[in-house]
């Protein structure tokens, strides 16, 4: 009876996780219509929440972090098996491995090196170097466009996928920063998988465990590393492997007290991250040159570096395809989103990227704020403008400029030419995008290292509409 239940529980878990995975993959790579669904999923991802905590981040992230933390302290790493789409994909690969009857998994004791990478990644993120985090955070791996080809998943994604065939959930316990933080919470969780006295030491559970955390000889399960995939439970021939409360209530209290120190230190780290001024957390190391145009709400290179998890949700949602992944501006700025006006311009009334950003790397802007939010400043090389070089009428830049920073006015040559008014420019790049001169537009936007507000739109007294002096002027 227990075996049948375990079997159904296993399949229910698989179905839930795979459904999530399929939906996320469809939303990411097949149907842009599901982008709103992605927004919710991304914001529920624990890794993205950690990213958000490294800022004076969105308040919901603090709430979710505490909620996930408490739930993990009670139930273990349910997140890794139910909420992480990359984890679900690794489990699928694991099934392939089972079908292929390759060498089975075996218990490996936890080694010091297994925590080294995640700790390093989190520390680097904390000091403003977010590239390693972006490369290893599971949701970012799934959705990132770093080194992606033809709009497909990134190279890291394929590497991790191939690795998981040989390594099971090894990634989750050796490299994944999200898994590392969750493992700290899960150690000493109240509900856990435990091997009972009836165990006959057949070893079926150990051989199937993709996390390599079951030691059947010692009848021990490393709860910190167990990702609750529940693959082992239904295989136990006499159901001695159970998910249950293992300790006496008094022992539970002791355990909670003991693990409290550990958890308090996590809290202190996160709290420290919250109060450390951003200026100290720098990003100076990762300063790209020349200044790229940062997406709206990125505030500064330091701010973007300190919070961006390279999930590229913003790149995905930008309706004008104006955002791209930065590669060459600086090695440590790799994978950050930047505006490239040659691809498209930042739409005046659009705040989609600031809305979807799961880590708060792009602060929320409303449309009114966006109208004067300055990403860069227009520059104009008059002598290369075709109005000057060819003496023809163009005006494409003035036509598209939403703020009136570029207008057409009489110049010394006796014909209308672009006139620049810097204090109204918000650096949207529309002028550069539509300028017919290529490959290098004579009108271009230079990004601001620190985004600010442009001069507000001039307020004019509401003038009544003019009327026609004669009934028909022709």
């Amino acid at each position, binding site marked *: 009876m227990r075996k049948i239940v375990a079997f159904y529980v296993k399949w229910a878990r698989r179905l839930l996780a795979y459904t999530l995975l399929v939906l996320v993959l469809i939303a990411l790579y097949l149907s842009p219509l599901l982008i709103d669904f992605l927004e919710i999923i991304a914001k529920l991802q624990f890794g993205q929440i950690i990213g958000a905590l490294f800022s004076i981040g969105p308040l919901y992230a603090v709430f979710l972090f505490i909620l996930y933390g408490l739930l993990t302290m009670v139930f273990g790493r349910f997140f890794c098996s139910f909420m992480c789409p990359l984890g679900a994909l690794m489990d699928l690969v694991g099934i392939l491995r089972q079908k292929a009857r390759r060498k089975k998994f075996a218990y490996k004791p936890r080694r010091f090196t297994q925590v080294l990478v995640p700790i390093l990644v989190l520390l680097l993120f904390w000091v403003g170097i977010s590239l390693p985090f972006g490369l290893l955070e599971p949701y970012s791996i799934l959705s990132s466009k770093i080194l992606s080809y033809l709009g497909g998943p990134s190279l890291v994604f394929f590497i991790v996928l191939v690795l998981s065939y040989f390594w099971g959930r090894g990634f989750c316990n050796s490299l994944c920063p999200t898994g590392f933080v969750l493992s700290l919470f899960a150690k000493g969780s109240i509900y856990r998988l435990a091997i009972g006295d009836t165990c006959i030491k057949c070893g079926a559970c150990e051989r199937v465990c993709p996390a390599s955390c079951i030691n059947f000889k010692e009848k021990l399960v490393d709860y910190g590393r167990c990702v609750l995939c529940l693959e082992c439970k239904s295989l136990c021939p006499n159901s001695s492997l159970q998910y249950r409360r293992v300790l006496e209530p008094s022992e539970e209290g002791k355990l909670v007290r003991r693990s409290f120190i550990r958890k308090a230190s996590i809290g202190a780290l996160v709290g420290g991250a919250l109060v450390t001024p951003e200026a100290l957390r720098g990003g100076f190391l990762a300063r790209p040159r020349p200044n790229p145009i940062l997406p709206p709400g990125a505030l500064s290179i330091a701010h973007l570096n300190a919070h961006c998890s390279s999930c590229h949700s913003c790149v995905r949602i930008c*309706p*004008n395809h104006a955002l791209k992944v930065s590669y060459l501006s600086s090695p440590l700025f790799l994978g950050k989103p930047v505006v490239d006006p040659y691809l498209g311009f930042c*739409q*005046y*009334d*659009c705040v989609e990227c600031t809305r979807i950003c799961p880590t708060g790397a792009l602060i929320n802007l409303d449309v009114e704020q966006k109208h004067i939010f300055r990403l860069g400043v227009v520059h104009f090389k008059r002598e290369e403008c*075709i109005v000057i070089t*060819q003496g*023809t*009428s*163009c*005006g*494409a830049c*003035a*036509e*598209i*400029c*939403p*703020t*009136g920073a570029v*207008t*057409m006015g009489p110049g010394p040559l006796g014909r209308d030419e672009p006139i620049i008014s810097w204090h109204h420019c918000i650096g949207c790049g529309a002028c550069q995008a*539509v*300028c*017919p*001169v*290529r490959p290098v537009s004579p009108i271009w936007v230079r990004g601001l290292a620190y985004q600010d507000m442009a001069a507000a*739109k*001039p307020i*004019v007294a509401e*003038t009544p*509409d*003019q*009327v*026609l*002096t*004669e*009934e*028909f*002027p*022709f």
Partner: protein
Amino acid sequence: MTLKRGPVKRRSFLKSVATGACALGLNFSLGGLVAAHAQEAQFPDLVAVRGTELTRMFDKALEALGGLGRYVKSGQTLVIKPNMAWAQPPSVGANTNPVLVSHIVKNALNLGAKKVYVFDNTCDNWVGAYRDSGLEEASKDAGATVAPGNTSGYYQEVQVPGATILKTIELHEVYLEADVIINVPVLKHHGGAKMTAAIKNLMGAIWSRGPLHRNGVDETLPDLLLYKKPTLNVVEAVRVMTSGGPRGRGTSQYLAANMLIASEDAVAADSACAAIMNTAGISTPSYIELAAQRGIGVSNLDTLNIQRLTI
């Protein structure tokens, strides 16, 4: 020939001579195209209606032109090309008023048009422009098919006969497919081209606008009329933006022209629009005269039969 055969014959003779001379004169000055118009001399070349209610103004103008049925026959495919280039609400006057477009769609469908398309190659992002202009919703509600125009795949390259600069253009597939094209621009100020109405609106029917800007907007715009001219141009000039165009800004000023201009000749329609803009201190853009010089249309309004109506 003798005049002694009676007054009736004399009158008819004089009439026929006059008609012939007229047709001959027009032939000399304007080329064969306008000669066809001369055969339907009972209809005006251009109708201007003053009023504030767009639907009534349109009905009045079309009544003077012999009814929409003269242009749209049962079973035909129709394209309505409004200006919906900007993600701006109708109140800004950057796009054609959805009331007018929806009215034309309904009338065309009542006349038995097989399909009515509405599209534009927008300047702002197309989703926002289609939505905020109110034109997507209004056209769909009226029964039209709103066609996207946001990628080059919707456009086909065609050779333009007689073009001076734009030898090839990429026209939207529904524009190419349509039996009838009704160009429904809004008249407004334009930072680059001084003024935009009927001719300039056709820049939204083609894909790459770079060549026009590169080679001079004034010099290239007339070429757009050569491959496939709009069957009818209906210019909305009710609340005309006179500064901050074409997108419109918070500081834009307006002229309450309260007019609707309808003509088969886009150049004539633009010429009338320029006269309106002149009263607001905006000079006439040179593309109108350049088009007239090449015989693509008539810019001298004195030579045209204009009907001026007031509601």
